[in-house]
């Protein structure tokens, strides 16, 4: 894992002091809320429905047990005993006091963490494949490139007041586990003629106008990665729309200019930038890489004793194939039946930290599906790990099933929401668990957002639910056929919306249609793609 040197630490410490000073000026009345808001947002501090909310960055979703422990301790010391893991691979606290915020940032800085650029119209936390460095199918570990981008994007002097927020994802496998093409810039590390480079996809996103990013260059040499990114950003900063907040994301610029014209402008800027020497020295990437070197894997058992069916089910569902055949990556589900997706108590967070120390070379990952991964678990340790997880209510065997849904905080926490998301998630998981249908349905990605901003990725759900406001009453739109994997697609709305009870029933109905007509090996998404919307509509509205 990356470790800060004194320079990185100095930057973060300086930021804590800068923010302490800003908070002081706000509390003393030297800054109005209008002036303070963009500053607190740059430090991840929102004002939400019940209190201030703090969003902590977890760069590319990777952290060690000391960092995880600190997150648990902060939940207990400054919040109300829990935190919420999000689709942006970071953590949110819901009950923060402005008076405490600088102290929290100082506590985070002690373990090389921060909340920098987790909000505001700047380059946000960089996300990546949660199985990076462990997956059997990756070309290289994408995280050194993500780290290079993290440093470049931190306090970037030119790109701190962009037209709108800017999200970058980096992957290095054909299988996309990071919704790469639904980011402002998606970077895939690829190989061409024996050389490693980066393919750039620009202009994806969700929100009210979901778009899938087109590829604008299939190969950027690695020693020009930052230069090319800088060119992409400069064109956006200069020409992205600023007249309308809802049209300000880069996806609209790319769409309005057309991919070809945007690409032409980027290439022109790139040619200019290459003269400016903005690329960090080549040795920098070489310095970063060893931090992500493989831990000392040992040969061990390659299979588990399956005599306990509960354990066997968990192994089948919640482990992912590792590049070393004596290891797996284990997914810790934060979706207990009837629970709040992504929430974990301070104690649970510390337990996960301890287990990472014991069983996963001190490393954890946060998934965009609001779960936690122990990336490197020895197969022979799996039973002990599962036993410990189960005892802490962290052993739900439901990865990628309908119970593993994504749900944004919705109207229970979020000031922008139209409707609640969490109660839907809770009721659906209870219902499908009780009827035993979860198992039959297999992989089914349900994603719920409480408003059009789409933090819950509903556009990319095999089944998506969107909360809308219908004359002051919560109402829900259902959509089908989305995917955020390598076969990216956007879900289509089925038709008129439903009440809370109605939408739960509707989910039941569309899954019944699938179970009736599916062919061998078809997932819900495959069936939908084969038969189209009509049979589902019929079941829902006739």
């Amino acid at each position, binding site marked *: 894992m990356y470790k800060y040197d004194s*320079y990185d630490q100095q*930057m973060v410490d300086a930021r804590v002091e800068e923010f302490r000073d800003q908070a002081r000026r706000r509390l003393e009345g030297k800054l109005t809320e209008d002036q303070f808001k963009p500053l607190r947002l740059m430090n991840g501090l929102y004002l939400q429905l019940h209190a201030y909310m703090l969003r902590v960055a977890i760069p590319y979703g990777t952290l060690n047990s000391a960092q995880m422990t600190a997150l648990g301790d902060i939940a207990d010391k400054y919040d109300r005993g829990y935190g919420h893991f999000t689709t942006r691979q970071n953590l949110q606290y819901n009950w923060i006091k402005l008076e405490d915020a600088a102290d929290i940032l100082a506590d985070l800085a002690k373990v090389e963490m921060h909340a920098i650029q987790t909000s505001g119209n700047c380059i946000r936390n960089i996300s990546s494949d949660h199985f990076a460095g462990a997956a059997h199918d990756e070309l290289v570990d994408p995280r050194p490139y993500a780290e290079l981008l993290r440093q470049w994007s931190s306090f970037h002097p030119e790109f701190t*007041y962009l037209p709108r927020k800017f999200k970058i994802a980096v992957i290095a496998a054909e299988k996309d586990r990071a919704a790469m093409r639904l980011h402002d810039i998606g970077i895939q590390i690829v190989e061409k003629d024996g050389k490693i480079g980066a393919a750039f996809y620009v202009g994806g996103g969700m929100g009210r106008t979901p778009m899938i990013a087109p590829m604008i260059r299939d190969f950027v040499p690695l020693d020009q990665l930052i230069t090319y990114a800088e060119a992409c950003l400069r064109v956006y900063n*200069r020409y992205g729309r600023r007249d309308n907040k809802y049209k300000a994301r880069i996806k609209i610029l790319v769409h309005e200019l057309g991919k070809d014209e945007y690409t032409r402008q980027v290439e022109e800027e790139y040619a200019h930038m290459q003269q400016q020497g*903005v690329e960090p020295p080549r*040795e*920098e990437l070489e310095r970063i890489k060893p931090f992500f070197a493989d831990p000392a894997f040992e040969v061990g058992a390659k299979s588990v004793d399956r005599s306990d069916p509960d354990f066997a089910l968990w192994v089948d569902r919640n482990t992912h194939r590792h590049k070393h055949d004596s290891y797996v990556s284990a997914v810790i589900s934060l979706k207990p039946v009837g629970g709040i997706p992504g929430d974990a108590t301070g104690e649970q967070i510390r337990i996960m930290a301890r287990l990472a120390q014991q069983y996963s070379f001190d490393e954890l990952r946060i998934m965009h599906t609001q779960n936690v991964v122990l990336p490197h678990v020895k197969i022979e340790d799996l039973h002990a790990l599962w036993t410990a997880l189960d005892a802490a209510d962290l052993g739900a065997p439901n990865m990628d099933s309908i119970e593993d849904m994504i749900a944004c905080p919705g109207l229970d926490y979020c000031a922008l929401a139209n409707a609640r998301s969490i109660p839907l998630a809770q009721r659906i998981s209870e219902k499908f668990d009780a009827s035993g249908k979860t198992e039959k349905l297999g992989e089914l990605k349900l994603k719920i957002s409480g408003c059009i901003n789409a933090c819950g990725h509903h556009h990319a759900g095999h089944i998506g639910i969107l909360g809308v406001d219908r004359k002051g009453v919560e109402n829900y739109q259902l959509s089908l056929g989305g995917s955020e994997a390598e076969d990216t697609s956007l879900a289509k709305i089925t038709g008129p919306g439903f009440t809370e009870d109605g939408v739960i029933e509707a989910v039941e109905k569309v899954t019944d249609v699938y179970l009736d007509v599916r062919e061998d090996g078809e997932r819900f998404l495959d069936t939908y793609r084969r038969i189209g919307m009509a049979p589902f509509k019929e079941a829902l509205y006739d």
Partner: protein
Amino acid sequence: MTDLGTSPDEVQFRFRDDEPADHGTVTADACCDQTNATAVRIEPGDDARTLLPFLDRLALIEVNFPSFGDGRGYSSARILREAGYTGELRAVGDLGIDQLSHMRRCGFDAFAPDKPLDAEDAERAFSTWDNVYQRTTDGRRTIPELRHE
């Protein structure tokens, strides 16, 4: 011709030794048409690159920030410096303490905020970062460079 610009006494912070330019400031369009203008003011929507042919005769370029949240002026500034402009680059308009250090890094060397800023807070802001990650034309050695010297 009307003078659009800020006068030298509105400049609150200046990091240059030469005498401040004090003559009529014209719009970017006027600058391109008019061969004798030595000071120009550009707005967020202006393309700074239209000024590149005239850089040798310009002593002052003002970049207006009607609202601090509109960051186009940062790109304008860098583009001008990247093209070798060495005259005064003055940020004017809705400037706050917390934008100063980034502006300085993008090449601004004079600041004329609409509302005067607290001098002590500003001084602290200008020196916020001991070191920086990105290469700009401000000449500072970056952290990645310092790591490998």
